[in-house]
């Protein structure tokens, strides 16, 4: 195992940030920690990268205990925090050199590992980090986290605030790094990114909701979900919410995802009900659950 987390709990004064967190990440795995802001993702990252000590539980990274062997962990992991934390007044090249030197290596020695990413920002290597665009900053931060050839890479919300094109590029880069044998733990608030991971842990309010492969998580969803649309979304939501047999009603883009309490549910009855509520252009169709549906069902 590359990362083991057993029953980790952490409180800040009266706030429980993490409660009995457990999961393992296999060597070479791309593992996602999926949850909204405030779920406890960053606290967990700080514990695993030895920057914070848990109140309870234990964890190992690359075979080392996060408390007793913290110095060894620091040499073996790369950490890209959610907040850009490179030196804004150093250039791209100076930042990279700085991090290489700290870890007692050189850019040249590990160039192979960062090459794919670095060539994209190398034309601007004399530009100060503070003057870079979001996408470029992110690539530089990733290079700096990789320059000492870590065994495990921690990426805390690398794609937050990044547009879809840069997001796609970033995930492509992660896949290539994974192929080079690096274990990756990545956190994200975007449910759709779960599908890009080998396995994920869904986390909310400091608690793990589920740990599994993304396609398995979706399979655990037991109810049939219906995509419903009508001429007016607001009236449709209100009507469904006041339907006494509803189990869940969630807007989902151009549709509402609806589940019913009854095992013998017949969509035709619902249609009749909606018509009685003066809705028109009603369409009710079966649909497949997504990670987000599962997340909401578990968090309910």
């Amino acid at each position, binding site marked *: 195992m590359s990362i083991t987390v057993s029953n980790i709990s952490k409180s800040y004064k009266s706030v429980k940030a993490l409660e009995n967190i457990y999961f393992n990440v296999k060597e070479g795995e791309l593992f996602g920690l999926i*949850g*909204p*802001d*405030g*779920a406890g993702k960053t606290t967990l990252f700080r514990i695993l990268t030895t920057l914070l000590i848990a109140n309870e539980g234990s964890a190992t990274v690359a075979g080392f205990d996060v408390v007793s062997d913290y110095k060894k962990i620091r040499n073996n992991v790369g950490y890209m925090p959610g907040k850009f934390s490179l030196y804004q007044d150093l250039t791209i090249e100076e930042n990279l050199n700085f991090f290489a030197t700290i870890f007692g290596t050189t850019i040249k020695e590990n160039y192979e590992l960062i090459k794919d990413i670095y060539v994209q920002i190398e034309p601007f290597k004399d530009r100060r980090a503070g003057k870079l*665009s*979001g*996408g470029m900053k992110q690539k530089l931060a990733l290079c700096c986290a990789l320059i000492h050839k870590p065994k495990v890479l921690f990426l805390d919300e690398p794609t*937050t*605030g*990044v*547009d*879809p*094109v*840069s997001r*796609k590029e970033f995930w492509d880069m992660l896949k290539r790094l994974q192929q080079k044998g690096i274990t990756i733990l990545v956190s994200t*608030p*975007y*449910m*759709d990114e779960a599908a890009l991971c080998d396995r994920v842990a869904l986390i*909310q309010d400091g608690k793990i909701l589920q740990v599994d492969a993304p396609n398995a998580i979706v399979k655990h969803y037991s109810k049939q979900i219906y995509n419903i649309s009508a001429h*007016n*979304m*607001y*009236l449709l*939501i209100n009507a469904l919410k006041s339907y006494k047999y509803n189990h869940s009603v*969630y*807007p*989902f*883009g*151009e549709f509402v995802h609806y589940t019913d309490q009854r095992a013998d549910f017949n969509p035709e009855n619902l249609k009749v009900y909606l018509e009685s509520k003066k809705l028109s252009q009603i369409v009710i169709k079966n649909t497949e659950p997504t990670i*987000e549906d599962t*997340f*909401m069902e578990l*968090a*309910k």
Partner: protein
Amino acid sequence: MSDNKVIQVEKLTKMFGNFTAVNAISFEVEKGEIFGFLGANGAGKTTAMKMLIGISNPTSGKANVAGFDVFTRAEDIKKNIGYMSQKFALYDDLTVKENITFFGGIYGLSRTKIKEKSAVLVEELGLEAVANKLVGALPLGWKQKLSFSVALLHNPKIVFLDEPTGGVDPITRRQFWEMIYKAANHGTTVFVTTHYMDEAEYCDRVSIMVNGKIEALGTPRKLKEQFKVDNMNDVFLKLARG
């Protein structure tokens, strides 16, 4: 201007020196519509929106927002729109009620009106228990719901939302969209700028900006058909990558 078009934009352009940030964009938004304004980082969304809300002068073109010309009536525009940014939020060191009173005052509501609105709003949002607590202590999702309501305090014709639900948990996020649907259903136009494509799926119509131009405009369903993909993220990728 016809009653139904609350935003009319024609060949609106903004140059910074030789750089054309917004390149002759044209579109219209109707009363009560939820309009998604999409684009990659640096595509010109923010510059375009600043012109629409009356805080940046266009270089050329025409725009009429909430019945007022952006060139000559910027101050009137500001009084008739609401604005909510993900970053701005509210004053963390004021209580829920104090924030409402403060923003109500800024928008020129009378004391009695503020009191009345404040009571309704606190009740609707289910914030009774925390009405006298500092906003800083509220969870992110509550803050965002509150700041949306505050942006609607003065019954604006249009409310501009900048990436309203990024990072919010999926359940709260849907409660937020229900609030948006409700506002739109009551005739408020909702203008959402975002680069989260799943937010785009909730809009009645969306426009996508690439390098200063609007390269696509339509309902999410039409755009998905047009680009032969099954989600807005793929529409965006196809457009932005050419």
